[in-house]
């Protein structure tokens, strides 16, 4: 089921002309392993801060949901489970392809890596398009944050519970959570394109796939956050 990859460290051996290992080994590292471990550690620390960043929104969600449970139930009826569910599957799939991209890169398959990255980017775009339709609908229905919350009855979901006056708070949280997440998706597309280009240039190899690995970690985090957002916002 799995195998241990061994990066070839041959290139790293010092020669006597002051040349310091392979091109991709930065001058201040001694070994590829040191560079790889440092990058991974740094990325995990960075992901920890990402999670703390989102945690503020989750705490706000927790507090308000527990204060106004009925309002949350009523408001979530206005969200489209089908669209949200589709987006969940799209993101999970993109996470899968990102993992496959790392695997291909680890095995030195440049072409496959590129293709998997492209699929991941495509999924990210699909996610944003679906999000766009959801947002447009909310705008039409006047289901907007706080001060701008003016629901238009004709655009609301028929048969759903009536929306209390303070439902604006729910939509504030909804737009902040999905909005901040959406910004992460956009940034994710950016960095995925960046490593796609680097991969095309042939910068990665069995020995050096760190950037692919790091970007994939970031992308999985985007997925991870959505895994919680979806049921908490759509499935109350």
């Amino acid at each position: 089921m799995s195998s241990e990859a061994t990066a070839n460290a041959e290139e790293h051996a010092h020669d006597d002309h002051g040349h310091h290992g392979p091109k991709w080994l930065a001058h201040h590292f001694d070994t590829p392993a040191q560079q790889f471990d440092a990058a991974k550690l740094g990325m995990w620390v960075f992901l920890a801060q990402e999670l703390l960043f989102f945690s503020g929104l989750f705490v706000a969600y927790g507090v308000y949901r527990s204060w106004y449970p009925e309002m949350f139930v009523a408001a979530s009826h206005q969200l489209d489970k089908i669209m949200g569910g589709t987006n969940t599957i799209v993101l999970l799939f993109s996470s899968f392809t990102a993992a496959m991209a790392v695997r291909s890169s680890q095995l030195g398959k440049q072409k496959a890596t590129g293709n998997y990255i492209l699929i991941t980017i495509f999924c990210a775009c699909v996610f944003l398009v679906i999000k766009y339709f959801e947002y447009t609908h909310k705008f039409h229905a006047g289901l907007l944050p706080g001060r701008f919350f003016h629901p238009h009855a004709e655009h609301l979901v028929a048969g759903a519970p009536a929306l209390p006056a303070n439902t604006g708070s729910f939509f504030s949280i909804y737009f902040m959570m999905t909005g901040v997440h959406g910004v992460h998706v956009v940034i994710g597309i950016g960095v995925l394109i960046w490593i796609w280009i680097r991969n095309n240039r042939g910068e990665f190899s069995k020995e050096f796939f760190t950037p692919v690995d790091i970007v994939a970690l970031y992308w999985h985090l985007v997925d991870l956050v959505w895994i919680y957002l979806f049921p908490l916002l759509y499935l109350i």
Partner: protein
Amino acid sequence: MASQTSLHPHKDDGAVHAHISSSAFYVAVFMALIALTVLTVGQSYVDLGRLNLIVVILIATTKASLVVSFFMHLRYDNKFNALIFISCIFFIGVFFAYTMNDTERRGELDGDQNVRVLPKTGEDAPGGFVPHAASSGGEHGAAPTGSGAAPAHH
């Protein structure tokens, strides 16, 4: 310090040793994630009362663990990276627990302390929620809603 190349390298050879899972395994993890997504959507049509939230969180956490352990390789990664992840969850837990220890328990010791509605008279506190407060020209301390929008804390 010069590293040696060998067919059976040990940990200190300075080379990168990453775990590589098989494609089939990744597909299996992905299918499990899809199955759990279907499960959680299906569950949302069944009302379990107070259990709803717990079930939803459990399913989401299972999904998250799959992603973190296998897609993100944490299962095979340096133990310290896992420690970072776990301690970050711990601090999020602290943030949640302590904040909600306040927001959930205001007015518990004395019904008049830190509440939005005075239990005796049912008055809403001034300065509180006014629907469309800002857009209606900012009537100060206008009649509070009393629409149930700002319920008293128990």
